[in-house]
């Protein structure tokens, strides 16, 4: 009996070893052989915000196909992180794909991205903050496909009902506190936003602080400026003039604004499309965020066009990215699904075409780009979790935890 078991175990192990040895999917290809055919086939993987975006990207790909002769297939991911990770591990990545800013550093560190930035002659045209966010090891890895900034959205009906006029648009923290207090009451909260650093971080920025230093090599979370910014948020939370979106039974600021539960919210330019679609009757106005003790501050977001290091069509893929990120194409995307161009030159044209988006366009000049450090997803996720308890917790405790977690992640990444 024992010998038979041992024999079976041995045979199984041998079979497993043989299978491991035979598996070719983990083949080591240091340099991917490049396809040199005149007509190439490219695959593009995107994580879409909706049908409008899918259609716009597919149309752009079709136009490129006609112009270049290369064929392009656009696929829409259901779970982008998981699908990309699987594709990289299986050495069959799509040629061109969206890279979310919170995943950028992970991919760059693993060497999955082809750094094509040096070959882009007019790279300086792209917003400097976003270029900084998509730079790894001193190399610009990928081009931001668009940009978004945060501004203050105001429900004009509620504004007038509270006896406020155009002159009352807040330009300072004191002004914001005053109008938020006036607007609160009767089922309406003055300011509603989500409990994320991606929104509340504007107050840290306005106080002169931020999560990291400019080159993203050191944590600066526990600075007095950051504490001052969060203290201001806490005072608004304490007086009930600021509430988190979930507290008023909505999932984000735009929904609270549309449902009339919020008189003001802090959101980016995706708000335009959402309001048009879900709450076409609600009138609102966008103004720049008020300035804090250290001046104006807002946050910028973007996704970049990644090209896979293991793509066999790198030249054609970069060519496609150049086409997709051209000024003309960016303006088409802006028109189709409400994103802002990431090229400074196109931004001016965009501001003329969309006068309502002026606040967002103007904010781009002083916006802070997203944090892009490898392994920081959970650190910032934990920060967002902690911000949920900001009303009852000392900001210094929250920031100290962020500092500690961030330093550990930085140390682990080196």
């Amino acid at each position: 009996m024992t010998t038979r078991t041992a024999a079976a175990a041995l045979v199984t192990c041998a079979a497993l070893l043989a299978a491991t040895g035979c598996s070719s999917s983990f083949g080591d290809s240091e340099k991917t052989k490049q396809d040199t055919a005149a007509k190439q086939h490219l695959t593009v993987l995107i994580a879409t915000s909706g049908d409008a975006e899918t259609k716009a990207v597919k149309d752009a790909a079709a136009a490129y196909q006609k112009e270049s002769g290369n064929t392009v297939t656009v696929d829409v991911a259901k779970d982008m992180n998981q699908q990309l990770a699987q594709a990289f591990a299986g050495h069959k990545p799509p040629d061109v794909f969206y890279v979310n800013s919170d995943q950028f550093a992970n991919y760059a560190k693993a060497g999955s991205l082809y750094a094509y930035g040096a070959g882009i002659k007019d790279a300086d045209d792209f917003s400097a903050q976003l270029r900084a966010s998509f730079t790894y090891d001193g190399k610009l890895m990928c081009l931001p496909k668009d940009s978004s900034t945060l501004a203050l959205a105001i429900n004009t009906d509620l504004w007038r009902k509270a006896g406020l006029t155009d002159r009352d648009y807040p330009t300072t923290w004191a002004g914001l506190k005053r109008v938020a207090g006036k607007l609160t009451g009767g089922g309406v909260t003055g300011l509603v936003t989500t409990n994320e650093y991606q929104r509340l971080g504007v107050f840290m920025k306005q106080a002169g602080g931020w999560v990291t230093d400019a080159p993203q090599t050191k944590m600066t979370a526990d600075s007095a400026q950051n504490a001052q910014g969060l203290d201001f948020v806490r005072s608004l939370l304490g007086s009930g003039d600021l509430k988190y979106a979930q507290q008023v039974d909505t999932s984000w600021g735009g929904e609270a604004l549309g449902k009339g539960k919020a008189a003001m919210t802090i959101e980016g330019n995706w708000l335009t499309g959402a309001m048009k679609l879900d709450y076409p009757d609600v009138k609102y106005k966008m103004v720049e965020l008020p300035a804090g003790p250290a001046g104006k501050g807002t946050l910028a977001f973007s996704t970049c066009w990644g090209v896979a290091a293991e793509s066999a069509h790198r030249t054609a893929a970069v060519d496609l990215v150049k086409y997709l990120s051209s000024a003309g194409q960016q303006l088409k995307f802006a028109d189709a699904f409400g994103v802002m161009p990431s090229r400074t030159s196109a931004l001016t044209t965009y501001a003329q075409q969309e006068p309502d988006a002026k606040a967002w366009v103007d904010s781009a000049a002083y916006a802070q780009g997203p944090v892009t450090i490898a392994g920081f997803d959970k650190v910032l996720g934990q920060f967002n979790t902690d911000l949920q308890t900001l009303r009852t917790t000392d900001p210094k405790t929250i920031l100290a935890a962020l500092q500690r977690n961030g330093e550990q992640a930085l140390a682990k990444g080196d």
Partner: protein
Amino acid sequence: MSFRTTRSARRAPSASGPPAAALPPSAGSPGAPDAPGGSGPTAAPRAPRTPRAGRRRDESAWGWLFVSPMVLVLGLFLMLPILMALWVSLLHWDGRSNPFGGQAEFVGLDNYRSLLTEDGLDRTLFVTSLRNNAYYVLLTVPLQTGVALVLALVVNQRLLRARSALRTAFFFPSVTSSIAVSTVFLFLFQGSGAVNSLLSWIGVKGPNWFADPRGVLSLLLGALGVVDPDHPSGPLADHSLLGLSWYQWLSGPSVAMCTIILLAVWTTSGTFMLIFLAALQDIPRELEESAALEGAGRFQMLRHITLPQLRPVLFLVLTLGLISTWQVFDQVYVMGQGAPGNTTLTPAFLSYSSAFDDADFGQGAAIAFILLALILCLTALQRWALRERDARPGRTR
């Protein structure tokens, strides 16, 4: 995992089986053993008879041939990936290079160390997920087993009308996709959803279910005036274990987690009801009849006849429940992804997010293996607790 069969006759009379004397008398039990002609189990096992040994070898060769497709499939798609994952859990793998080619840095037990012994975010998140899941298991398993048993007893009544309709109704949640059910629950339990509307009719203001990170035990303690849930202080807040304060350990499942527990109980009790029902219908009528003749009441019948007969099935249901509740993933993925306040974070989801969101595949694999070890230990413990005790305490009747 082996489930003991109650009927000895089911044991295959294989040549390597126990001698016949060890078998309980099979007379009277249904289904006589279909012993192959000639090779009676009474033969002395050690007798060196050549033709018999030869046939045995033949049989085993054929046996291996017959099971080989399954062994291959299991080995290739189950054992091999498990061993590969075990290897990955010892690496600092970036998800791109070949994990078996030596480029990935071998870090030994570092991934396990950062989860278990080193103070930091990794351990805090992992321990939090364990705490959440422990409360989830502690509530879900007894509830779903109890509800399933009661439902099975109800629909097993011979006098009950519309039995099959009821059986279908109770079983229905089990055949529905868990993703779809989770989404429906999201709508039902919104702050202004159907559940809170119902509660408002009886004058109760329901919480904002999925946005409420407060632990139910801490709410209870707060209501009793033991601690202030907003500002916990005293010994509970000052002492900590594995990076979580005692207060955090004791605050119980959050309101959001309770909703997921409710969902789990609702969907799984139908499945387990079916298992209990099958077992109930297997209890010999004679036993119940003789108990009735002895004058046993309904409760006594349940206590002394039905439940002891259900013991193996109870073990099965508890084990299946324990394993599936420790692995809860899809409801968490749909409903909260750990929010609010990390109170719906579970090890299975954490494993997924460290691998795919933080590109830390080694740690994701390490979490999975700690979870596996935990489940094995708990199942062993449960097996020991539910073992057949030979000497039963004598009953006075």
